[in-house]
């Protein structure tokens, strides 16, 4: 009787052990998939680095817009000057 129970316990233990090992292994697998994909600056390197081109294009746009705004401000100053002169006359 005791012997049989002992045998049963052993099976249970084995079952529990196997479940735990499967769990541990599957956890390991889940953890591993992102580990393999670690690469920094992700967005810039995905899709054939197309976002580098996007960044370059936005820098160029920003540069031109910045310069054009400065031209605009110069023009506004000139307009003000003309208006002031008209008032003075």
């Amino acid at each position, binding site marked *: 009787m005791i012997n049989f129970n002992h045998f049963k316990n052993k099976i249970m233990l084995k079952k529990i052990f196997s479940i735990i090992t499967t769990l541990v292994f599957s956890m390991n697998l889940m953890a591993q998939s992102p580990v393999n994909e670690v690469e920094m600056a992700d967005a810039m390197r995905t899709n*054939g*680095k*197309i976002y580098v081109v996007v960044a370059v294009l936005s820098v*160029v746009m920003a540069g*031109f817009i910045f310069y054009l705004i400065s*031209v605009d401000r*110069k023009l506004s100053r*000139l307009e003000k000057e003309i208006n002031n002169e008209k008032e003075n006359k």
Partner: protein
Amino acid sequence: MPVPRLPILHETIRNMNYHVALWFAMFVILTISVVNAVRYLIKPVAKFDHYSVETANAGILLGLLGVITGSIWAKFTWGDWWTNDPKLNGAAVAMLIYLAYLILRGSLSDEQQRGKISAIYNIFAFSMLLPLLYILPRLKGVDSLHPGNGGNPAFSSLDLDNNIRKVFYPAIIGWTLLGLWIASLKIRIKTIEEKIND
């Protein structure tokens, strides 16, 4: 528009139409600037001085954009924002020389003097630009990551296929015209300013 499929570069080969074309356009515009500087020295009319300065301004804008875009491109293909590439350092020095041109102009108040000195400096700056960007990086024994420099093959044979050429050449013309248009806006503003002050 399909582009050549190349390792490391991937889609960034499309930067040709921005980074490289901007430098080409800058070179055209700065050439116009130095031609007008010479014209001013031959015949000191304020008009030529305006042409020279404003085209130089536009050229500096394109050059600075070229440096920044090149830096971004370098980060994701060569692995760093700034490498000790002779062409990069040459471009940085050339840009500093041209920025000094603007500072020199700002420091002189007399119009005649400013026009003459800055025109002479413009010629000097342009003659520095040539070796810094086009000759020094191409010398034998110089290591440059830029294609066509330091023994590297140029883009032309390997990577520039006819599809990218269809965009690249119009892009050069487009950036040049955009720069010249902005320069012309500023020239017109200056002309009006002068008329008011008279």
